[in-house]
């Protein structure tokens, strides 16, 4: 009974803390979206749903959703496929495996600002490493920041570089949970490595992958720092996503209510996608037919 009381107290304390930390700003932000205000120090005026009406009629909003989906989608596919491949290699026995595993996680430890600056320096069209390399082959440097495709490509590349180690770590942990006997039995039955991967490894990683893809999806769709540091949503809004649009509206264009409306729509969109995703791919193993 005493134990039950403690559990309940801890539960409610956690809910209360989360409510204050997450719920407070969320409610405040939703509230802001119903006002017209230039900044936090300017007078504000109730406008009801006007910010939402304006936002839904703005082609940039839809473009930002499309860009966010494209960047997230491509980055997640690359992160997951590379992450599984690297984890499979790191799961093998070889000399120096611990060291290689540690090195493989290193990019994840890099501060995003540092990673972005390093990439910018390497790709600088006038002084960068890539320019020197291309120049040695007699090839001129391209202007990656002035072309929508290359600007988006660089954002995806940096995202893959930094966050693939997260996938590697999760998949590696998942691989440890697959019983070795399954592989031994498959080997005895003459199953090829590909069939072992397809029929044992992938199903064994299902729960891990559901969580990893969910988390990576949320994080990538909400990604602000990499995009802002590398392209600021340019050129010509071609890499603008909802987080950068929300920031731009609220803090650059002096439209706090408009920025809050973007953030609220982004939250609703993500919440809906997450609910559908979890409905399609329940994390609970008993509901996965395993």
């Amino acid at each position, binding site marked *: 009974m005493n134990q039950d009381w403690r559990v309940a107290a801890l539960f409610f304390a956690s809910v209360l803390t989360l409510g204050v930390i997450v719920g407070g700003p969320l409610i405040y932000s939703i509230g802001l979206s119903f006002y017209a205000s*230039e*900044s*936090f*120090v*300017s*007078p504000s005026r109730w406008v009801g749903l006007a910010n939402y009406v304006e936002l839904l009629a703005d082609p940039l909003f839809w473009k930002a959703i499309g860009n966010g989906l494209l960047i997230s989608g491509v980055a997640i596919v690359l992160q997951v496929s590379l992450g599984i491949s690297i984890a499979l290699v790191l799961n093998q026995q070889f000399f120096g495996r611990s060291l290689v595993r540690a090195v493989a996680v290193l990019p994840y430890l890099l501060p995003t600002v540092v990673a972005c600056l390093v990439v*910018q320096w390497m790709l*600088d*069209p*006038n*002084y960068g490493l890539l320019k020197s390399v*291309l*120049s040695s082959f*007699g*090839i*001129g*440097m*391209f*202007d990656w*920041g*002035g*072309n929508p495709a290359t600007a988006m490509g660089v954002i995806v590349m940096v995202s893959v570089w930094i966050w693939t180690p997260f996938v590697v770590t999760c998949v590696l942990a998942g691989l440890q949970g697959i019983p070795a006997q399954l592989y031994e039995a498959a080997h005895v039955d003459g199953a090829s490595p590909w069939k072992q991967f397809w029929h044992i490894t992938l199903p064994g990683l299902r729960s891990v992958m559901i969580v990893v893809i969910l988390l990576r999806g949320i994080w990538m769709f909400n990604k602000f720092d990499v995009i802002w540091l590398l392209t*600021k*949503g*340019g*050129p*010509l809004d071609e890499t603008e996503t909802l987080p950068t649009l929300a920031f731009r509206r609220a*803090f*650059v*264009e*002096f439209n706090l209510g408009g920025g809050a409306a973007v953030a609220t729509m982004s939250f609703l969109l993500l919440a809906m996608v997450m609910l559908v995703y979890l409905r399609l791919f329940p994390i609970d193993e008993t509901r996965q037919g395993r």
Partner: protein
Amino acid sequence: MRVNTEDQGRNEQKTSGDRRTFLGASASALAGGIAVMGAPFVKAQGKTTIRFLNSETSTESQAVLRKAASEYESLYGVKVVVDSTPISSAFPKSMAAINAGAPYDIATMGFIAHILQYARGGHLVPLTEMVKQHSWGQMGSWQYQGENWFYPYDYNLVTMFYRKDLYEEKGLKIPNTWDELLANCRALTISKDGSVERGGCVMPLASDSSTNWASFGSLFAEEPLMYDKDWKVVMDAPPNARKYQRFLDLYGELYKTMPPGMNNVSYAELMSLFVTGKVAHTLYSGRVVEAIESRNPALADKYGIFASPDSSGKRKALSYAFDGFIVFKTKQSEETVKFLKWFLDKFYIDWLHSAWMNFQPARLDIYEDPRWKKHPMIQKHWSTMMQMKSYIENNDVKLASVDLMGPSIDLRPCKVFETNVLPEMLQNKVLRGMSSTDAVKAAADRVRKIG
């Protein structure tokens, strides 16, 4: 069994004792911590503390502020806490401080939109009386609602820096028209492997403040209007539309002489491309001279500056910005104004010397002040400084800025600046390949939408 029970009892006692010791120690540590954290607060209750938000982050400028703060405290017993932050985060930080109920007392500020918002919100103390005591260059003593809210300390004129040695080598003259400017840039461009190895010029293109600040001097020389006297948007109406279109045509041609990466060029690159010899012209304030002296002194006698010409050779213009001090309305505003007056009296020259060429004085009397003039670098680059002074003193050269377009000082052009309407007009021209007419029309529509 008995022994075991005794042992168990001793263990329980020991565990209980450990817990008590731990809890006691934790409580003491917590109480101690609170006391230590509370001490300065309690101490501060009896002493005035002025909080200064500084966005001039060079070590020299910060050192001047630290020294002034220390001297002021020892003289008057008033503590001045200096908090330095990059200029890009000065507004969010000062705004957050107001919302948190702990506003800064004084700050350096450079963007009119931020000052206007604070003034409109009733957060600033007018500095009109202090500003009135001096003569200022063009626009140096601008007012809003009949008051000066800002005590400027520098101009950041965007002059065109050029390489004198390269001009001599090619027999070029300082351009008086756009055609001459374009011809000079073309003559100085060197291409290799299909890309520009040394640019004729650099005029940023990115959607940021550097483009708004630096790229439109030649446009301003044409004196186009964005709004009429009633704030109606007229940039796509004759004769303004043609002026914007002509400028876009010029930019399109100049762009071909620029090195790659214009969409990522910001303040730092504008300087470094010139200092490292990657471009023959750049647009920047006096900070380029400081960069030349510190990174490539060999260029120190090989550069010159000129104002941006118009298309016909009749007018010159410079884009510009300025920085200054603002005083927030707090319970100790009076003490803060007193501090600012003392600082201006005792440390203004040191402050200006901390960025000797970039802090081009806004107050005209400073140019006659022997304390300011004696700085060896100012003496060395005296002719450049005097040329810069002539731009703010005479009305021959028009000083203009995107955030100051319109019939009066207002937040509307500030929003045009912040929303990067004009940089995106350039991008539409050179990256999207839009015609100049369509690019101007698109920009005008955006300005109308902004309101």
